[in-house]
């Protein structure tokens, strides 16, 4: 993989990053299988070049970006972020990417745009999880953010990991990272970004609305109906005898993002 050029960012955490080996071998990417090891085993078949991302909907200038061209026009930054999975484990990951707002500003959202809808690739011939009798989710995978969440400086499109291009199992060639929300909000291998007026459907909410809300902000006070979210298991620390650590409100990014939810009932809007 080609080494990327990037600058450092004040948004990075000073926490020690999770080893690359763990970040690239322990993945939830159901398009390649439901076991944590499946994406690393199966995702190499995915063709990521050429790759285009259509940005459309309520915008003045709908554009289809070629990822290679897009990369020539953005300033890449390293963002070392906390990642908290809804399942109760966490990692610290050095992503390389750029603010999603860079792209959104280029297409000029209309005043009527209130939400941003995202869509992952649908390509059953290269994504074994999208075929077969028993499928965990409806395809393509879709996600969504409120426009202000999407424009927040912490929200990035990542194209790299540990200074290199993104491995396929981590969502190559381009994926979303929203560090204050549970990992499943950070949709992988994006092909479409649409600005819309109404709150878009999201894959896990569609699958089980009682358990996975639209917001899915990391919150130790609001338990998943079937398990506690108060603590998390850091991956790659201490092996078999690793200790849990407390989960932080908004995954530790409360200072940056809490104002987005001022006055909202975070229990009702989980």
């Amino acid at each position, binding site marked *: 993989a080609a080494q990327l050029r990037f600058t450092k960012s004040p948004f990075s955490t000073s926490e020690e990053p999770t080893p690359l*080996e*763990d970040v690239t*071998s*322990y993945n939830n990417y159901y398009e390649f299988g*439901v076991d*944590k*090891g499946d994406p690393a085993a199966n995702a190499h078949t995915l063709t990521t070049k050429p790759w285009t991302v259509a940005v459309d909907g309520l915008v003045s200038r709908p554009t289809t970006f070629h990822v290679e061209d897009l990369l020539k026009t953005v300033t890449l930054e390293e963002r070392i972020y906390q990642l908290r999975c*809804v*399942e109760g*484990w966490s990692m610290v990951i050095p992503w390389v990417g750029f603010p999603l707002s860079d792209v959104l500003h280029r297409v000029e959202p209309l005043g009527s745009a209130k939400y941003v809808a995202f869509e992952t690739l649908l390509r059953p011939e290269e994504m074994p999880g999208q075929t077969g009798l*028993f499928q*965990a*989710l409806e395809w393509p995978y879709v996600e969504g953010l409120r426009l202000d969440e999407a424009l927040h400086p912490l929200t990035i499109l990542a194209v790299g990991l540990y200074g290199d291009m993104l491995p396929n199992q981590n969502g190559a060639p381009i994926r979303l990272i929203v560090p204050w929300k549970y990992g499943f909000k950070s949709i992988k291998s994006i092909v479409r970004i649409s600005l819309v007026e109404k709150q878009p459907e999201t894959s896990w909410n569609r*699958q*089980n609305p009682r358990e996975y809300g639209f917001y899915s902000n990391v919150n130790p006070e609001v*338990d998943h109906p*079937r*398990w*506690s979210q*108060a*603590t998390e*298991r850091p*991956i*790659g620390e201490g*092996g*078999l*005898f*690793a*200790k*849990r650590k407390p989960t932080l409100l908004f995954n530790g990014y409360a200072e940056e993002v809490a104002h987005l939810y001022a006055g909202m009932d975070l229990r009702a809007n989980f």
Partner: protein
Amino acid sequence: MPRYINRAIYLVGMMPATWTFYLGVIDQLGADPMKTLERSLGLWALRFLIITLTITPLRDLSGVNLLRYRRALGLLAFFYALMHLSTYLVLDQGLDLDAIWADILKRPYITIGMLSFATLVPLAITSNNAMIRRLGGAAWARLHRWVYLAAGAAAVHYLLVVKSWTMEPVIYTMIVAVLLAYRVARRLRGRRRVTLASA
């Protein structure tokens, strides 16, 4: 001969646990070793429960009688359940009693898992010849029918713990359901035979 086979069953039966724990200690269990160990032990407990429950249908349907090995298989199921529970209590929760108690009360999958384990305890304690003599064959057999509850609860526990229903937990649950349904069918047929005979 059966005595040696029984010893072999214990020896071979404990190998998955020994091997997985060894891999964990030398840090070869992947990114989330505790979870891998916890799941593996739980899955083996369910597998041994299933094997234990197939002894009777196997005898009925094919004439192969492995009854003398059922105790070893049942006890292996209990040992795996015990190791699975210990992993959860010690390695997963770090013996945080408040968190564990909250889990038991609030989380149906933990409650049901605990129920399954609690059911297995008296069965394990009475899995020896002295207890069969003490209880008498009929009472002992009645007590050990609680294994049906333990197996059913174990399957539901597995179904509830996963983020979404994938192939594996659904298949295990179906196997348990078939094995339990077989008991019900056998009971009903037996009763009908009795009624016919007395008519």
